[in-house]
C-alpha cells in the first residue's frame, strides 16, 4: 500500500491518500499540477511530505531504490541512445511485452527520430514497465496513441494491476477512465477529493 501524508507541492496539498491497488485515475484540468504531484511522489522534485510504500518510508531507503519501486513515467519520454534497443535489455521478457504493445522487432533497431510519436510513447512505457515496479505513476500514457493501441496498453495495465501492482494514472479521456479505473480522484481547490467512477 502506498500512503501519502501531508505532501505539499504547490498548488496541491495532499493531506492523506492511500492507494491499495488497482487503477486509480487522477482527474483534473490542465495546469492543476498533476504531473508535479506525480514527480513529487517519485521524489524527483523537492517536496515536503511523508510517503511510504508497504510500510517503508521513502526517506529510509536510497532514492534510487525508491524509484525502482515507485516509477514515474512522463508524458513525453526522452532518449539518449540512437535506437530504442539502446534503452532496453535484450531479453525474452522485453520482447514479449513489446509484442503486447504492438511493437515489432524491426522497430527496436530503427533510429529514434524515425519512430512515430505513438511508437516512442509505447517504447517509453515499455522501458518503464518492463522491470515491473510496484507502483506506476503514469502521466497520460496513451495521449499519443490511436484507439486500438490505447486498448492494448490499457489491457497491459489491467493485467499489471491484477498482479497486485498499484497504478496511478493521469488521463484526460473519460472513456479511458470509465474502461480501466477502479477509483477516481479529483483535484478541487488544491485538495484531493474522491470522485465518482
Amino acid at each position: 500500500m502506498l500512503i501519502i501524508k501531508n505532501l505539499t507541492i504547490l498548488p496541491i496539498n495532499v493531506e492523506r491518500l492511500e492507494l491499495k491497488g488497482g487503477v486509480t485515475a487522477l482527474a483534473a484540468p490542465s495546469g492543476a499540477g498533476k504531473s508535479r504531484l506525480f514527480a513529487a511522489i517519485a521524489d524527483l522534485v523537492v517536496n515536503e511530505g511523508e510517503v511510504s510504500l508497504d510500510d517503508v518510508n521513502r526517506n529510509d531507503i536510497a532514492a534510487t531504490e525508491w524509484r525502482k519501486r515507485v516509477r514515474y513515467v512522463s508524458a513525453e519520454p526522452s532518449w539518449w541512445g540512437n535506437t530504442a534497443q539502446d534503452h532496453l535489455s535484450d531479453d525474452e521478457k522485453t520482447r514479449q511485452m513489446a509484442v503486447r504493445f504492438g511493437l515489432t522487432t524491426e522497430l527496436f533497431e530503427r533510429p529514434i527520430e524515425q519512430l512515430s510519436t505513438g511508437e516512442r510513447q509505447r517504447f517509453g512505457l515499455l522501458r518503464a514497465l518492463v522491470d515491473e515496479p510496484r507502483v506506476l505513476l503514469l502521466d497520460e500514457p496513451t495521449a499519443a496513441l490511436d484507439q486500438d493501441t490505447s486498448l492494448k496498453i490499457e489491457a497491459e495495465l489491467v493485467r499489471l494491476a491484477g498482479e497486485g501492482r498499484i497504478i496511478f494514472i493521469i488521463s484526460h479521456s473519460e472513456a479511458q477512465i470509465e474502461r480501466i479505473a477502479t477509483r477516481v480522484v479529483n483535484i478541487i481547490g488544491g485538495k484531493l477529493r474522491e470522485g465518482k467512477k
Partner: protein
Amino acid sequence: MASIYIDNWHIVLAALAIFITGALSLLMQLGLAKSIFIAATRMIVQLALVTLVLAWVFEQDSVWVVLMLLLLMGGFATYEIRARQKLAFTGLWSLGLGGIPMVGVGIMVLTFTLTTVIGPEPWYAPRYAIPLFGMLLGNSLTAVALALDQITRGAKQRQGEVNDRLALGMSRTEAMLPIVRDAMATGLLPIINSMAAAGVVSIPGMMTGQILAGADPANAVRYQIMITFAIAGTTGITLLLATWLAVMRLTDNRHRLRLDRLRSQKYPA
C-alpha cells in the same frame, strides 16, 4: 647568446602596423579604431605593471611572496571562469566550484614539475614558477570555463533526459554521465588540438620565446613538451574534479536534479 635589446623607439616603430590599421578603420568608418586603441593601451599598461611586480617578486626571493602572487593569479582566473558562464551556480559556488580545483591542481602540478622535472635553485625560483603557472592556469581556465558552461547548459536543455534516467532508478552520477562526457570532451578539445598542431601548424609560444631569446632549439622543444604534458595533466585532473563537483551541486543527496541552484547571467559578462 642573449636576445637582442629592444629600446622604446623600436616599440613605437613596431606599433606602426597598428597605427595603419587604426587609420584605415577611421578612413573606412569601420568603428574599430577606438577599441583597437583601448586594447593596445590596456596591454601596454598591464605589461608595464607586470614588469614592476615581477621585478619586485624576483628581488624578494621568498616562497611566500611567490605563493601570494600565484594565488592572486588564481583569483583572477577564477573570476574569469564565472564570467564565461551563461548559467552560473548560485552563491560562492559560482567561484569555488571551478576555482578551487583549478588553483589547487595547478599548484600541485607546478610544485611537482619544479621539484622533479626542472629543478631550479631554489625550487620555487619565481623566474620559472610564475610563467609556468601562468601557462597552466591559462589553459585550465579555458577548459574549465568551457566544460562548466557545457554541463550547466546540458543539464538545463536535457533535463527531460536526466529526469527520465533518474526516474528509472539511476544514480545522479549515472544520470548525468552523458552530459559529463560531452563537457569533458569540450574542455579537453583545445589542449588536444594544440598538441596535434604543435610544430606542424603552430610553433608554440613558449618555444618561440626561447628560440628568439637565443636558446638551443632542441632544448626549447624539450621544455615545450614538458610544459604541454604539465598543461594536459593539470587540465585533465582539474576537469574531472570540477565536473564531479558540478554534478554534485546540480543534484542533491536524494538524487534529484536541482536546476534551482543555477542562475542566468549576462553572457559573456
